[in-house]
């Protein structure tokens, strides 16, 4: 199996020859920028630089993780938010909200020609043509709940859940329409996988019930309209949300180390593939290659379907740790028989995870 087949098979819950390593989030670092001579912030606006840099995890470390865009502010910028361009090591982010109320929300008719979106579409085409046979080209979009936080201001928008639930629904619905339009365009321009990050809809901010009421219906709509394999990424402690995420309709769910793999497996079952959950800071940034391997083997023993950093890699992540992650599946054989599977699961339990 090549990396592309293996990753897509695993996202869809199919047979694999080894556990794939892949990131539904961004995995480029400052040393990759130096190597590619393509750096932030310019690479957020220039499609050639964007494609060159996005290919680096694969070309430089054999991590088959090729993702554009690199930030979560693409949609907010297109909707009129003031943006901080970021720096060499910091992604662009939203400086000021664009609207006061959902009534004021304007979905641009020419959305696909707005802001950096044309650059991302072109970068997808370049990547698809250049390395699309070997690795899946991942298009990252932002979920409606997070976009709503950007365009209305997080505190104001999240307060509507209690004060004006209709406003909150309208805000997420309108924002989600932007996500849906973008997904369709990304699919048409060469994306093999759609990964939607919705970090503001985290269990660190919302209860399970609030996720069910204000997020799940819109996640279901988006997952239902997505033609390519789809991944949902929400970081933070999402244990209270998992029972609902199971119903979201996404093919895979990507999570961080605040959720252990055994709990995720228990609550998500086989309905949705598990991607994660190597700590991006404590292990990928600050750990050693041996720690990366140990954490990766532990996650595989416990039933992770795709090995990944639990969230976007720090731009300072050492390359040797990324290479260790890429090679980690060599230290683990995919169990074939049910007895073997059970043994692996028990070994994971015995290693000290609290279910």
């Amino acid at each position, binding site marked *: 199996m090549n990396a592309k087949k293996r990753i897509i098979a695993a996202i869809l819950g199919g047979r694999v020859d080894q556990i794939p390593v892949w990131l539904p989030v961004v995995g480029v670092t400052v040393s990759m920028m130096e190597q590619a001579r393509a750096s932030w912030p310019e690479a957020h606006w220039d499609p050639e630089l964007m494609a060159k840099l996005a290919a680096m995890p694969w070309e430089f470390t054999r991590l088959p993780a090729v993702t554009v865009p690199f930030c979560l502010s693409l949609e907010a910028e297109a909707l009129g938010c003031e943006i901080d361009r970021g720096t060499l090591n910091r992604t662009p982010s939203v400086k000021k909200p664009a609207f006061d109320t959902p009534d004021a929300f304007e979905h641009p008719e020419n959305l696909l020609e707005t802001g950096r979106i044309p650059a991302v579409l072109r970068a997808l085409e370049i990547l698809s043509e250049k390395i699309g046979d070997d690795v899946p080209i991942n298009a990252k979009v932002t979920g409606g709940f997070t976009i709503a936080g950007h365009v209305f201001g997080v505190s104001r928008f999240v307060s509507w859940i209690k004060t004006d639930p209709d406003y909150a629904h309208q805000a997420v619905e309108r924002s989600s329409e932007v996500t849906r339009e973008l997904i369709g365009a990304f699919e048409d321009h060469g994306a093999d996988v759609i990964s939607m990050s919705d970090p503001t809809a985290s269990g660190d901010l919302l209860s399970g019930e609030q996720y069910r009421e204000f997020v799940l219906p819109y996640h279901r709509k988006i997952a239902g309209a997505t033609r390519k394999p789809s991944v949902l990424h929400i970081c933070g402690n999402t244990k209270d949300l*998992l029972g609902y995420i199971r119903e979201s309709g996404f093919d895979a769910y990507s999570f961080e180390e605040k959720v252990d793999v055994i709990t995720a497996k228990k609550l998500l079952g086989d309905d949705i593939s598990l991607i994660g959950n190597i700590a991006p800071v404590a292990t990928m940034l600050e750990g050693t290659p041996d720690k990366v391997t140990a954490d990766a083997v532990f996650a595989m023993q416990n039933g992770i379907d795709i090995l990944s950093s639990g969230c976007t890699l720090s731009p300072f992540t050492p390359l040797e740790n990324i290479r260790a992650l890429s090679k980690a599946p060599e230290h683990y054989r995919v169990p074939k028989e049910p007895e073997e599977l059970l043994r692996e699961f028990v070994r994971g339990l015995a290693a000290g995870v609290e279910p």
Partner: protein
Amino acid sequence: MKAFTLGLAVGRLIGDGRSSGTDDQPPSENTPAGPVLPESEPYRSLAESVLKGDVAGAGNLAAQAVQDGVDPLDIALHGLLKGMDAVSDLYNRRQAFVPEVLLAARALDAGLQESGGERDALGRKGVVIIHTAEGDLHDIGKNIVAAIVEANGFRVIDLGTSVETPAVLAAIREYRPIAVVGSSLMTSTRGAFLTTADHIRENGISIPFIVGGGACDERFAAQRDTVQYARDPAALVKILNALPAR
């Protein structure tokens, strides 16, 4: 799946308190920490209004209490803040979430405004300066931490997001805080805390600098001996409570 409603938790809190009767005296300062609502009126209703996030109710009750001759400081300390304290406790136990904390903070504000209670007078345990790292524009975590720290009796000076070192130094000189708190969600911005910690020391200022947020951990904080890590608002409050008041 653990199903939870804030209503249930609030109901439980309110129910527990009522069963123990009422008296006419303000609750003692020795009231144990945690979600214990005051028993006597009007403090109980004031606290409940904040706990429920009833912005109009908190304002009206506070205005009424002032008319009835209750000291604005008692309205705040023994009523409104007790409600905020209860919300903080529920948040720490993952039984209330960000929308509830934001709304409770708004109800607290409305109550304070109507009672004429000066916010500054509430900071009986000292001043805490809070900010996000230079380059970091995420404010929701900082806002929640600010609300919870304030509910625990500190005066919070919120410098906002993406705060540069000179602004932190200027605020330290102006407000003489007992601690500086910094939040960073991006590993590319957390390094600013070390710069700020170095400048604080170079300026001859001795003050704890407590950092938190997804990009920080103990290992990061250990790079400077004046920097400590708090994994959540409850841990932060514990550190702050152990500091000598200024």
